[in-house]
């Protein structure tokens, strides 16, 4: 009950903060009803994350303060109900009812995921683990780990009130609900250009897109960033249409929230500034003041995490500028890890060379035969955009002379430029990094296709494309939800569900049951971090230099000193992966051979490649909990010193 109450309060807090901001800017009454909800929720969620940074940096993550904060933030939501109603309501026709049924099905599938315990690996490693850590310490701690520690955490800040006040169920319900913000905005924006049936169809296609299904209900930030990108794009389009500074300010807020949510948000910021400039300049409108407003508001709304990183490391985009500017603490990062990380990015995260051919080929290859690194098969974007491409091309050709005047122009510029920046940057080529711009691409292509369909009378092939894509995506969504239905309907316990879904969960359960709260566990088993009740140190071969386990590291004395420096008392290791090597994560063997580490518990566990379809690949591995023997360790150190 408390979980649902907290969830509702946080939703109202988002709506309240957003509605308050829109009313202050005198924009609320200009929006259609569904836009008011979508815009308010997006702005409010961003503001919530922004304000929670301030609360956390003052170490005020205390329940009473979070209750008061959410309660006060929810108050302005009354503006939403008092805003003058807009437009009349038409009855739904048959096709619209079919879309609503499809949306309801998707909502039920998402609800099944939301009521189950969290099990996604990235979510366990940091999306949920960091908020849990911050709540336990009462405020923000700097985590000097590349990729998933010292990063912009605006979205994860919104996980803190729900987890702190409503518990884990409130948190998973929140990720389930907040993932639908992008769907609501997609419908609201599409409604400006196409009839209600098409807008509802776009919403169905978006919510059932495999990449959205995969990450929407988890702690991943991309779907929530997509909501901010949608708001930024439509606000930029409105700025270009009206020349009103208020829309530029709203766009700046939304762009800032993307920047504050992920490093790649910087690409969105650059693309948005270019989109606004080009849209205004092509229409011969004054652009300087509006672009300055956009950039300044973006800086304020999104700059805090970069200042936070700069204060703690000297690098606002840790560790991108390593070697270019001085670092404040040399233990946080070194050249060895810099090179190892660059190698991982070049080999493990990049399957296609960065050239013009692959720039154009990537969307097609990722759709029809994705390379494993793209992760575009089971978690890709589905077939819709490519199926309606000829119809969209026809629509674009029809309006080719006035394209730059269209409200879709700046939206398309943002999507295309972000894709270009992302592809050329050498960033991870996993397709989910494109999720923030996918709804924009869906709207732009979808609206252009509808224009072509209307003009050339090709509605049947278009309807077939929508029907096929939506059907196969919803079937995939149902298969995804089947795993969670087991928990919801078949009396499966939390422990049973987690054992069935998370590699090594029994080891975490043993640690929680048997180790004292004074213990601290070092492990590279990232999928377990959130589920530890005792303090845990998440070690990483390339992302963390404080405890050096990069593949070439082979110094047991230094390894021991680093572990003890972090007050580690136990180590959890996976024996199968380390073989007999005494380097990297295998350095524990050097300590064990001197009796400094001894086994405390060993468990054989299932290894899952896919939670949805565990039968795709099922093997077992052995996890061992090792504990320090201080006497043996001191003897080992004495021998080494001698």
């Amino acid at each position, binding site marked *: 009950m408390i979980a649902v109450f907290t969830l509702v309060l946080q939703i109202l807090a988002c709506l309240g903060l957003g509605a308050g901001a829109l009313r202050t800017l005198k924009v609320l009454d200009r929006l259609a009803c569904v836009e008011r909800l979508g815009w308010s929720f997006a702005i409010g969620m961003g503001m919530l994350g922004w304000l929670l940074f301030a609360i956390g940096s003052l170490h005020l993550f205390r329940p009473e303060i979070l209750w008061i904060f959410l309660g006060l933030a929810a108050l302005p939501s009354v503006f939403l109900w008092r805003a003058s109603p807009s437009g009349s309501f038409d009855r739904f026709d048959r096709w619209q009812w079919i879309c609503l049924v499809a949306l309801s099905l998707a909502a039920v599938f998402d609800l099944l995921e939301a009521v189950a315990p969290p099990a996604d690996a990235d979510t366990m490693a940091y999306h949920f683990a960091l908020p849990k850590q911050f709540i336990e310490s009462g405020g923000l701690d700097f985590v000097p780990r590349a990729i998933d520690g010292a990063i912009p955490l605006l979205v994860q800040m919104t996980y803190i009130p729900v987890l702190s006040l409503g518990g884990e169920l409130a948190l998973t319900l929140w990720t389930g609900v907040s993932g639908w913000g992008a769907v609501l905005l997609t419908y609201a924006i599409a409604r400006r250009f196409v009839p209600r049936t098409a807008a509802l169809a776009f919403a169905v296609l978006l919510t059932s897109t495999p990449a959205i299904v995969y990450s929407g209900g988890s702690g991943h930030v991309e779907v929530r960033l997509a909501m901010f990108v949608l708001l930024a794009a439509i606000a930029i389009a409105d700025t270009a249409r009206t020349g009103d500074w208020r829309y530029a300010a709203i766009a700046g807020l939304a762009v800032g929230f993307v920047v504050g949510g992920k490093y790649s948000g910087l690409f969105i910021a650059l693309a948005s500034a270019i989109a606004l400039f080009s849209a205004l300049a092509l229409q011969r409108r004054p652009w300087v003041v509006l672009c300055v407003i956009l950039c300044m508001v973006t800086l304020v709304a999104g700059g805090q995490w970069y200042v936070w990183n700069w204060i703690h490391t000297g690098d606002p985009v840790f560790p991108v500028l390593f070697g270019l500017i001085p670092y404040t603490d040399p233990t946080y990062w070194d050249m060895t890890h810099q090179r190892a990380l660059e190698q991982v990015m070049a080999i493990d995260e990049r399957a296609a060379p960065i050239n013009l051919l692959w720039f154009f080929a990537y969307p097609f290859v990722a759709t*029809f035969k994705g390379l494993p690194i793209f992760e575009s098969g089971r978690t890709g974007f589905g077939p819709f955009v490519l199926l309606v491409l000829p*119809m969209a091309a026809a629509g674009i050709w029809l309006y080719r002379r006035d394209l730059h005047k269209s409200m879709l122009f700046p939206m398309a510029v943002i999507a295309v430029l972000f894709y270009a920046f992302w592809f050329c940057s050498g960033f991870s080529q996993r397709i989910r990094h494109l999720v923030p711009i996918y709804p924009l691409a869906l709207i732009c292509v979808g609206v252009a296709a509808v224009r072509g369909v209307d003009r050339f009378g090709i509605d049947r*092939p278009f309807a077939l494309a929508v029907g096929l894509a939506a059907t196969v995506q919803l079937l995939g969504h149902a298969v995804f939800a089947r795993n969670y239905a087991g928990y919801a309907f078949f009396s499966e316990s939390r422990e049973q569900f987690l054992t069935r879904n998370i590699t090594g969960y029994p080891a975490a359960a043993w640690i929680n049951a048997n180790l004292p709260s004074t213990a601290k566990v070092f492990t590279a088993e990232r999928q377990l971090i959130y589920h530890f009740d005792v303090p845990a140190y998440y070690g990483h071969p390339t992302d963390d230099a404080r405890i050096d386990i990069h593949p070439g590291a082979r110094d047991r004395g230094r390894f021991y000193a680093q572990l003890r420096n972090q007050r580690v008392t136990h180590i959890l290791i996976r024996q199968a992966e380390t073989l007999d090597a005494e380097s990297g994560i295998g350095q524990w063997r050097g300590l064990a051979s001197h009796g400094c580490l001894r086994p405390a518990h060993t468990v054989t566990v299932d290894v899952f490649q896919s939670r949805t379809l565990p039968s795709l690949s099922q093997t077992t591995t052995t996890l061992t909990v090792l504990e320090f023997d201080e006497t043996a360790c001191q003897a080992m150190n004495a021998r080494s010193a001698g």
Partner: protein
Amino acid sequence: MNQRTLNVLLFVWVVGGFAAYLIQFHALIRTVLDVFGLG
């Protein structure tokens, strides 16, 4: 090009594209059918 020809061509594109999309999942589809006892 008349409208009928255009529609036929687009039908071929949509059905062909959809089939090409599904081919990559043939092993996955078989697994899903097995899961539901339909394999």
